[in-house]
Every structure is written in C-alpha cells, then in structure tokens.
C-alpha cells in the first residue's frame, strides 16, 4: 500500500493490558524510523493485569503533525483481542482501511455485569464472519492458536505483525531485523516462524476469516463455577465493627439491633468471601459448594 498523497499512514494497535500492544507499536515505529520516516506514537497503557484496554496510535510519513488518529482515518487496525477490535472499529477508514484481529477473547472484569457466581459475562456476540462482512479488507485470524502451535502463546503478536506486513510496504528482512532486536534471544526462532505464518495466512486473500477459530473465549461460567453459598456468623465473636457490612460488594450484610452482623439479603450474596477475609474477629465463615451444571 503506497503512502497516501495527502498525509501520513495511520496504524492503530489495540488490545488489553499485558498483551504487548506497546511492544507491537514499538516494533512498527522503529521499522518506520529505520526507513527514514517521521513517526509519532501515542499510547495509553498502565492497565496491566486488570484486563483494561490499551491502545497505541502509530503515524508515519514524510511529516507528521498530530500524534493521534482521527476517527475513520486508520489505515490499519491491529487488534490483539477481539472485543477491543470491535470497540475501535469505527477508527478504521471505511473505504481504505484494513482490519487485522486476533479472535481470542479476554473477558474484562467489568463485563461481569451480573455478579452472581457463574453468571455469563457480557461480551460481544457477533461472530467474526458477521464482522468481516462489514469491513473492506482484513483478517479475523486465530493468531493465538497459531502461536500456541508453535510453542509460545506470546508469539501471537508476531503472527499479527506477519499479517500486518502484507499491508505495509516494508521488506520482510527489514521486519525480521527489527523483531529480532525486540524479542528475547531464546525466542527469536519462534518469532521468526510466527511472522512467516502470519504473513502466509494473510497472503491467501485480502479478506479472510478463520472459520475454525476457537475464539478461545472465557465465559463467566468458566471463570467462576456456580456455587451455593452458606454464610455462618459466630455471634459471640462478632464485635460489630461494621467492616463486613461496608466492605461487602453486594451490601447484603447489616448490623442487627444488638450490633451483631447478620445476612439480610441472602439472595444477593455471591459468595465472594470478602466479609470472611476482612472480619478481624474471624466471625464469618463462608462455605461455597459447587453446583453441578444443569444438562443443556
């Protein structure tokens, strides 16, 4: 893809904390720099370990003024996580943009709207095929599984870079050189292979959906087994400090008129154990018994 006459090339890279969004954008930025382009990269990170969204704008060209990509002007959207891909899809240029997304799903904590243990998480229900119908060009690929087959889940990012390499006009050697300088020495070989696999997968056509993508999603059901919660309070030990009452995320405890803790909304209790853990007097005991899955 040639550089647009009237402006820089815009690549938006998105994912969730801990996936390596920053690493991917650094690889790209350095590659562009090596080729004499002016590069601007701006990012939001810091949500590591919390499943929070992380994004990075990479813009390069003969001259770049603004560091951020306006809505509808990304030439390529690279998404390391499926829901993040959908969240940012409107940034893609509808006429010329290319969509590259891993189909893996990482369910963020805030998707658990219903806090009952075992409740399904709220997560986009569109299938990759449905999404791909609405984009001009791109790939919904199971990069994570490809990387896993190679023996290192973390190489999924490099698989996506391989796919991205088809959309930008840098030589394969230039890509590999930069990648080599970023990955730990012991995983160079795997990353080289991952790049080749990603590139190969994308070369098979301008628009491809991996119909077999496992979409390795995690549902709430997998995260938290459904449980039956029994909450017992040793009244003689309770000193009415109010900690359990105030710290219960569901506000289902209260102090009775003797200033002893009691469960007044048993139905709201999710069995999270917060009250048990924070009671300084060991007065609360939670017993969670897993419930057998009802047959489908």
């Amino acid at each position, binding site marked *: 893809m040639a550089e647009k006459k009237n402006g820089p090339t815009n690549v938006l890279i998105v994912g969730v904390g801990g996936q390596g969004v920053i690493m991917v954008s650094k690889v790209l930025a350095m590659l562009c720099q090596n080729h004499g382009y002016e590069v601007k990269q701006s990012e939001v990170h810091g949500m590591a370990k919390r499943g929070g969204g992380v994004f990075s704008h990479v813009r390069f060209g003969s001259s770049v003024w603004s560091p951020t990509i306006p809505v509808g002007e990304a030439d390529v959207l690279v998404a390391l996580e499926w829901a993040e891909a959908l969240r940012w899809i409107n940034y893609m240029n509808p006429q010329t943009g290319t969509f590259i997304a891993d189909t893996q799903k990482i369910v963020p904590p805030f998707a658990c709207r219903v806090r009952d243990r075992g409740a399904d998480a709220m997560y986009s229900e569109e299938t990759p095929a449905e999404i791909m119908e609405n984009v001009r060009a791109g790939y919904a690929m199971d990069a994570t599984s490809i990387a896993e087959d190679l023996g290192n889940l973390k190489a999924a990012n490099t698989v996506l870079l391989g796919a991205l390499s088809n959309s930008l006009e840098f030589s394969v050697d230039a890509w590999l050189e930069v990648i080599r300088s970023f990955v730990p020495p012991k995983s160079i070989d795997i990353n080289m292979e991952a790049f080749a696999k990603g590139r190969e997968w994308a070369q098979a056509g301008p628009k491809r959906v991996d119909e077999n993508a496992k979409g390795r999603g995690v549902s709430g059901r997998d995260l938290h087994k459904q449980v039956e919660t029994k909450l017992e309070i040793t009244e003689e030990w309770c*000193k009415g400090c*109010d900690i359990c009452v105030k710290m219960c995320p569901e506000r289902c405890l209260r102090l009775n008129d003797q200033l002893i803790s009691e469960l007044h909304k048993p139905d709201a209790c999710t069995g999270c154990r917060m009250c048990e853990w924070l009671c300084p007097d060991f007065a609360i005991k939670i017993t969670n018994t897993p419930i057998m899955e009802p047959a489908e």
Partner: protein
Amino acid sequence: MKDSVNEAEFQINDYIRLDQMPHFLCPGCGHGIALRALLWAVHELGIDKDKLAVVSGIGCSGRLSAYVDANSFHTTHGRPLAFATGLALARPDLHVIVITGDGDSLAIGGNHLIHACRRNLNMTCMMLNNEIYGMTGGQVSPTTTSNRYTTTTPAGNTEPVFDACALATAAGAGFVGREVTMQVTGLKNLLRDAIAHDGFSFVEVISDCTEIYGRKNDLGVSPEMMLSQKAGMRPEAYRNTVDVPFKPNALECGMLAKNDRPEYGATYRAMVDRIRGKGA
C-alpha cells in the same frame, strides 16, 4: 527446604485456639485481619503446626501469639527478635515467625531489628504498624504520621517518622515487603513468599487502630480507615511506571526488596561442620 504447597481450603479455625476466642482486640482492629493472612500463608505452605513457632513481644501485636494454635511465645517488650534468634539457631527444624508492632520493633526493639536484618537468620518478622501504642492508651510511636494527635502529642506529632521497610532493606534483610490489611489476599501472598524465603524476611502490615488512634484523629470507623490506607498505597505493579497516576508521596507496597544473601544459620552450621571435620 520449605514444605510443599497445600491445596486444601484454608479454615482459620484449624489454626487458632478456639478456647481463647473471641480475642481481646478492639472492634475493627486490623491486627485480626493480618493474623488471618499470616495463618493463611502458613496453611498454603503446608507448614505443620507442631513445627511452627510464633514469637511476639509486648503490645497489642504481642497478644496475637496466644491465639495461634502453635508453639507460641509471648516475650518481653521489644525483644521477640532476640528470643527468636536463639530459638531459630537452636531449632532450625522450626518455622519461626515473629509478630511485632511499630513500637515493639522500631522503638524499644530497634536494635534487634537491624541486627536481625543484618544477620539474615531464617525467620519471618511481621510488623503490625498502626502508628500508635494502643495497649498503653495511645501514645506517639516512631511511625505516627506528622501532626497527628496522641496522648503524648496533644498538639500534634512533631517528630519525623520511620520508614520501617527502608530501614530493613538498608540493614540487609533478605526479603522486605509491605501491604495494607484491605488487600488481604495480597498480604497473604506476600507473607507466604516471606516465609518461604530462606533468610530473614520482614513484612510491614499497615493496620488500623480505630478505637484509639482513629478516634483521636477523626480518621473514621474501621472500613473508612482501611480504605484510606489502601488509597495511600502505591501498588507493586505501578512501582516503576513513568506516568504516575498516584500521589507522589504514596507508600510503596508489595515486595520491596529481595536478596539471596547466605542464610546465617546454615553458614554457622557449615563452620561447625568444618571445625568438627578437622577435629576428627
């Protein structure tokens, strides 16, 4: 050298002396939460209670040893680390855990703390920092925040505070960490790593004294104190980020220092073997 990890679910009642309950701490005192975290860590490491020795000093923290179903020693003010040093050298087969407070270990027992750090004998010291001498009615301690009121600082504390973790690190402790009671699972994990560390490990727990210190300084009830203590911490994950979204004066928590210096007991025993080998 540590026991294997225990998969069974943790039940606090298996680790406390039920006939001593309810314990004597005030309502909402964070020490109880810290004790849970400690025993939980002991459980996860699969430590045999018969091989567990809990040594404490004097003060509110000192009373905790009596509630642990283990070999427990409630010693003199400021000296639990000295007693524990003798016990740990005498009985390397025991897991020695010291429970102490800010007054006990930083004021009257400060000398023992720095030398325990330096010596690096295998034991774990859990220091409960509630910024106050609670047992004696609320006097200023080496960690009382500036300007706060205590019975001996009626116009507000004018003395600077000790950073116990910085002290322990500088003195050479093998493992140093800090956590708030609100993060009870994080505290448990930290204590577990501390106990598993081969050498002297020091964990500072930011605990709340609601009844005396909190009341005197309008810090709110226990849940409020716990939440504000948590808000005052700077989690480990953000320790080295450049774009710091937290207060610059926030306390660091999590594991703060770890070094694998030789453990003193093993070093001494190796010397003994050498001497005896030569003699034979």
